[in-house]
């Protein structure tokens, strides 16, 4: 009897191990464990055995039943593991179905990146209207009445010239008037950015545009050392370019700051060694900045003896051109999808 059990075990082990499909396995299960299966037959014959043998054979038989059943289960798992719902020649190199692929304009993307950085540093975002008055564009900021920027050669003046008998209107030539509007309507100290498009009446080429985007940031507080501005600029640029960027501040003249700085960034293309991008000097002019001019503070009805601060003006077009290697500034206003779709 024991011998028979051994034969069944070996037979089962061999056949189950070779089974390749779930169906085969199902048949084997019936063959060994089914109503008329080999083990069932033996179990049925136990009452016919000697009394002394019954207990041991019964035990062995149950053990065998369990072994066979385990073997079937484990083979079943093996088969499932190998199985695929998909035919063998399925081409997994076909491309995926893409979600809708729209995009923000690359300048908007840069602007939002900067907004996120500045917001994380506690700056508010302010937007001024595109059309402003001579009062805010020039008078308030102490541009002398005959300053060249006031000429129609430089600024887009609008009709009606004198809508109310007061001031002339223009498409804003810079954003500084916007900062004055913000300061007039908020309480100091100030930390805010004011991105926007500005307009200059000039001829266009690959490097010049009539409409371009600026991003200005202003801190006004009772004390602020301009050397701290370096930290501000370094933080911004490192975040924009995703790596540590060296900056330097050197003397420069800009109408809304005193002292003014030309802020240079270590050339990312050559790492400062000098290349054609940085005109072989290793540095790239990236933005002007400085301490807000007392006239700007006065226009905002602040006492320049009591307030100081830091200002930067980031040319977004230029920064985006550097970020992607765009070689023609006019593409930004082209609305050409062949260009814009590259920024999805």
């Amino acid at each position: 009897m024991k011998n028979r059990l051994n034969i069944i075990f070996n037979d089962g082990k061999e056949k189950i191990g070779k089974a390749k499909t779930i169906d085969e396995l199902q048949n084997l299960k019936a063959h060994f464990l089914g109503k008329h299966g080999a083990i069932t037959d033996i179990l049925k014959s136990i009452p016919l055995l000697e009394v002394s043998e019954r207990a041991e054979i019964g035990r062995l038989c149950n053990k065998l039943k369990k072994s066979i059943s385990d073997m079937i289960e484990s083979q079943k798992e093996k088969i499932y593991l190998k199985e695929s719902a998909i035919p063998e020649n399925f081409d997994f190199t076909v491309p995926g179905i893409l979600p809708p692929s729209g995009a923000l304009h690359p300048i908007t993307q840069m602007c939002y990146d900067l907004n996120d950085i500045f917001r994380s540093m506690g700056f508010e975002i302010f937007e001024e209207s595109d059309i402003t008055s001579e009062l805010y564009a020039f008078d308030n900021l102490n541009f002398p009445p005959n300053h060249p920027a006031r000429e129609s050669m430089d600024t887009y003046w609008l009709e009606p010239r004198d809508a109310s008998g007061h001031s002339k209107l223009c498409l804003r030539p810079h954003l500084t008037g916007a900062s004055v509007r913000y300061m007039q309507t908020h309480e100091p100290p100030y930390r805010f950015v004011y991105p926007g498009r500005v307009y200059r009446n000039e001829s266009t080429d690959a490097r010049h545009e009539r409409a371009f985007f600026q991003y200005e940031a202003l801190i006004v507080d009772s004390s602020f050392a301009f050397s701290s501005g370096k930290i501000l600029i370094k933080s911004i640029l490192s975040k924009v370019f995703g790596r540590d960027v060296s900056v330097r501040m050197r003397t420069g003249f800009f109408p809304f700051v005193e002292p003014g700085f030309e802020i240079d960034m270590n050339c990312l293309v050559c790492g400062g060694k000098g290349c054609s991008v940085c005109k072989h000097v290793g540095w790239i002019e990236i933005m002007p900045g400085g301490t807000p001019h007392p006239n700007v503070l006065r226009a905002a009805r602040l006492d320049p003896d009591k307030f100081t601060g830091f200002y930067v003006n980031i040319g977004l077009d230029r920064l985006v051109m550097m970020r992607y290697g765009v070689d023609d500034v006019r593409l930004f206003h082209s609305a050409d999808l062949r260009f814009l779709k590259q920024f999805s």
Partner: protein
Amino acid sequence: MKISLNWIKDYVELPKNMDMTKLAYDLTMSTVEVENVKYLSENFENIVVGIIKEVYPHPNADKLRICKTCIGGNELYEIVCGGTNLKPEMKVIVARPGARVRWHGEGDLVEIKKIKLRGVESYGMICAACEVGLADLFPPSSEGEIVDLSDFDVSAGSNVAEALDLNDVVLEIDNKSLTNRPDLWGHYGIAREIAALYDLKLKNIAPFSAPKVKILDVNLIENKRCRRYVGAKLSGINMKSSPFEIKKRIWSAGLKPTNAVIDITNYVMLAVGQPVYAFDADKVNGAIIIRCAKDSEKIKLSDGKQLSLSSSDLVTCDNDGLISLAGILGEEKYSIDSETSNVILEIANYEPSGIRHTEMRHELRTESAARFEKGLDPQRCDMAISLLFQIFGTIFENMSIVEYSDIYAVHLPKKEIDISLAWLESCIGKHIENDYITRKLEKLGFKVEFNSDNMHVLVPSWRATGDISLKNDIMEEVARMYGFENFEPLPIKTSFNSAINQPKVDLDRKIREYLAFRCGMNEIFTYPWVNSKYNDALCFDTRDMLSIISPPSADECYVRSSLLPNLCKAVSENLRNFSEFSIFESAQVFFNRNFESAYDSREVLPMQRKSIAGACVSEPKNLFNLFRKTKGILEAMPKYVHMEPLTFKKVNKPNWADSVVWLNVFQGKETVGNFALLSRKSALACGIKKSIVMLFELDIDLLKPYTSRTNEFKHLADYPMVDYDLSLLFDLSVKWEDILDTLNQVNNQLIHKMSFVDEYTGEQIAEHKKSVTIRLLIGSFEKTLTSQEIKNCVDVVIDKLKISLGGELRD
């Protein structure tokens, strides 16, 4: 501007081992941007002095000759040359093999090699001035002449740069960085900066003393615009070219030598930044008058240009006519010529804005005007006069000053500035010793006094007209001398009151991100000036628009009152490359009305609204889907961007819209925009022939953001809910909105949602009928419904639709 280092050395003694790269760097960091450092000797490698020993004909060419030339050593070299002035013992410039020259002064530099010219080997070439960049210093008197150095004490074989002392270093300075520094428009000014940067001694220019001679007759009428007029009449001038030393200086600084008189005036200008105008005294009749021009008064300038002046131009004149356009350029008639023997020198000071206006009005740019427009100090004339008399006296032995006049009409006020040292330290972020401040500022010409906590500064006249007027300016002087790089950045201190919460700002961004990332649209930017063709195509009324006085082009003179015209232009242009796409733009639009200002009663601004507009483009056969897609963009927007829902109603048809497919967009009771198919007529006018365009435009300023998310949690049903689809036939005139209204009247507690699935017309559907598939969501919160209960619900719906709208269940 070009700065010659040899010239600088006249005024300040530079350390022997001065590193030019460092000098350029330090000037860039602290003073002005040095764009380039040029070593003039680099152009003269392998270019040497030669002495022609023999000249004989070339066997194979009539115009060429062979010169046996000594270029140092005993050996004579044969050089083939076509020069017309070749003669034995002539000293010439020889480009040896390896030298780089410009053939006939044109094209790129070419390396000289030993080659055969018509069968005769030539050891390099004998050069014309233009071939080695010396045409301005050695102008040939006729074509084909080579440079004759016979008058120079130079030896054969010596390098030309050394022999002629052309070993200069030229700093090229970006003029933009000089706009606010009138003091730096001459070598002396730059020398002063260098002296201050490196603590070197600046040499003085000999003080000026007025000659005691007859008074030159000058009548200064416009004494506000001409703040000082110094006139000096010199006799004993014989026309000649200036000494090589003078020529070389002005040539290194980028000007072209002409004759001694003009060269000296240029020399003085380049030295101290003060323009000097010289004209022929014998041509002057009567007093020199400085007055405004008469309207339409004509002048022919010395460069040949004819101008018609206006009363805002300043001129000098005599009894006969105009002598000059003051401070800019002289009249041709009074120019120095070969006959001139008496000269009047004008050393004047003109008010900058008048000069700038005349320059712009007549599109003139001269070295003189470039300096006056920056604002020069009248005291500077003294330095110029002193230098002028000294050099004229040296060059013209018989020169004497015969008449002289100095009308000093406007003395500019002295500028004095008081600065608190505590303020200085807080702005600079560092304590700087008083001694240091004094030393540096005094080198720059300031006078400094300290009294306890304050410093009192007297600004030198040459800085008072330009960049120094405030204590911030003095702070900058101290900081730039200390070096901006040498300040340790201090951490930024901050105080916190509340988190930033700007829902309006966020709304704009969320809408853009929704359209780009959720709806797959591309953001575009177009100009605020609208293209007339597209504005007319979409029938926007220009009476409601502002216009640009000098527009970018004739068909772009209005600023837009809607984003749609330029958007349609973008559609039309992109159709060249794409047939299906969707784009949007967010920007302001402007209206010629509702003038007001929230900021200042002295200004009024027109109505300006922030707008967002989109266009979805496809082929005509996709109209129904394109309509639903675009409408879906608007319907789903409020939930994504957290604002009140948008609804649609027909109230006012936009002019540009199709006669059927249009809707006004509402938020609450307020119209916030339009949504429609671009009419066929407008599309054709835009050049869009084979495509359909769905457009929307919303006024972002009107949209109301929620302060936070508003959706509420709904309990999940404990029992199954069933989707039940029904297709019914309706007359074509029945709208989904009618069906929805009817369904809403059913009011059955077990029906939770009724939605549109599909609409179909065509085969199998009777004419004038359409099949609409509706999905009902049916279920109970108390139990699982039996199929009979579900059927009862459906039957109620079917009955209602049949009675109200004549809907028939499809077989």
